[in-house]
């Protein structure tokens, strides 16, 4: 009979109106400035540079190997390596700019970085008026502490710290083994000489 | 004005009906003069056609078939105009008047049914 379809539709909308008072699922509104949606741990927006210890610049993990600059699809990272007085390259970036107005938030820089120096942040309230200087973020604004990294992404941060500790330990063993081998090589010649 | 003439309320209604829209229009005119000047320009008043420059004009002859809708609407509208005073006073009218008005309404309804039957209202 004409109209039963529409009545059935009205029943559905009525179910939703009444349901919105009882079921949490039917009232999904999040009152933005007061309460925010709790973003998941994996959520990524813009990259940031991780530094160990509590002083940003000396503790920066980035050795300016420029792999992320090459691999970044929209090419929005710009690195210049630090050079000390006799023009020898130093493992530290003098200039590390990311153009947030071009960055496509893909996370490839964090994925390809061999030193875990750049990770993905989850801040998204960056609306501003000036585009030229506001969104061109230099290394001072980019650098955030490892402690902050632990706050926003605990599991990922622990895994990264575990890996770094593992590498350090292996490096020390290798260094000790090399030192022992060098000592062993240095020790026999004097005995052979006498 | 001890006993106001019965038509006085018409004058008051007319005055209020006139003043009520004029106040906001006057305020708007005042606002334009003092604060935000009107700046009409060729680009702003260009014809809006989904963001494109509209070529060709929209003043063109429509299909003649559409005049039928106008005529059917006209008949029913005029009938409504006659019904309004009747509706206002039909309680105090004798039964003869009601039958006459019924006859009038049925006549127009019959015309509408005929037009519908002949398919004038089909949206070809």
């Amino acid at each position, binding site marked *: 009979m004409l109209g039963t379809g529409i009545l059935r539709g009205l029943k559905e909308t009525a179910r939703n109106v009444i349901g919105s008072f009882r079921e949490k699922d039917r009232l*999904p*509104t*999040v*009152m*933005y*400035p007061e309460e*925010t*949606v709790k973003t998941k741990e994996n959520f990524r*927006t*813009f990259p940031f540079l991780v530094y160990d210890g509590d002083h940003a610049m000396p503790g920066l993990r980035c050795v300016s190997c420029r792999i992320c600059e090459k691999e970044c*699809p*929209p*090419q929005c990272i710009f690195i*210049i390596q630090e050079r000390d007085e006799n023009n020898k390259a130093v493992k530290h970036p*003098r*200039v590390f700019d990311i*153009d*947030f*107005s*071009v*960055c*496509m*938030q893909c996370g490839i820089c964090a994925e390809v970085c061999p030193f875990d120096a750049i990770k993905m942040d989850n801040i*998204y*309230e*960056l*609306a*501003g*008026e*000036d*585009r*030229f*200087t*506001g*969104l061109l973020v230099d290394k001072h604004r980019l650098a955030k502490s490892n402690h902050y990294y632990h706050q926003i992404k605990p599991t990922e941060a622990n895994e990264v710290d575990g890996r770094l500790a593992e590498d350090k330990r292996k490096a020390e063993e290798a260094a000790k083994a090399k030192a022992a081998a060098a000592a062993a090589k240095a020790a026999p010649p004097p005995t052979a000489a006498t | 004005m001890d006993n106001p003439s019965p038509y006085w309320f018409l004058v008051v209604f007319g005055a209020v009906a006139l003043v009520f829209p004029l106040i906001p229009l006057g305020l708007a005119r005042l606002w334009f003069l003092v*604060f*935000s*000047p009107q*700046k009409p*320009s060729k*680009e*702003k008043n*260009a014809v*809006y056609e*989904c*963001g*494109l*420059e509209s070529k060709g004009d929209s003043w063109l002859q429509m299909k003649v078939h559409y005049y039928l809708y106008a005529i059917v609407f006209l008949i029913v509208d005029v009938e409504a105009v006659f019904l309004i005073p009747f509706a206002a006073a039909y309680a105090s009218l004798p039964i003869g008047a009601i039958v006459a008005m019924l006859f009038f309404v049925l006549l127009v309804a019959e015309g509408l049914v005929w037009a519908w039957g002949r398919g004038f209202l089909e949206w070809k």
Partner: protein
Amino acid sequence: MTEADEKTIQDLRRSGILLTTLEDLYNWGRSNSVWPLQFGLACCAIEMIAASMSRFDIARFGSEVFRPSPRQADLMIVSGTVTKKMAPQVVRLYNQMPEPKYVIAMGACAISGGPFKQGYNVLKGIDRYIPVDVHIPGCPPRPEALLNGLMELQEKIREQNLTGENRPHHLRSDVSGEFPVPEFGACDLEPPSNPAVWTPPEPIREGL
């Protein structure tokens, strides 16, 4: 409006008496009912629609009425990649909007061409032809980032004053709100950018 006046107004407001100036009333009305133009270009448009849906609910900021025609809109959210073929239409729509009009450049593509910057048919940012009030970076920015940008715009509208020298351009008769519409050239738009609006600073070339 000294500090003391501010405090007295707060106290009076608490006891139910509202004192305001014409300017505050004018800006309060305008900032809380910004009607956006229904203008979705690409992926950011889906996040704009998601922002207008029940979960992020742009209606709480007075902007859920997305007007299809530019005649009734006073905010243009450029959400998506502005290509060179679409740029004249964007500028023409901006011109056809009534005067107090604002522009939000939502997403990396609208600000600077974003990931598609090296494309031959992509405009490197809409602020080459029309003035942009708020930039929202992200690709696409979360719906909350759009709401944050909208609150930023509302803040900016509240601070505009009604008279005096730096009143907004829609209250001045000398500044026209329209910008020339670029034409299609042989391989690019003519002119490539509008110098009145597009004033980039000196490009940083140090150390190249």
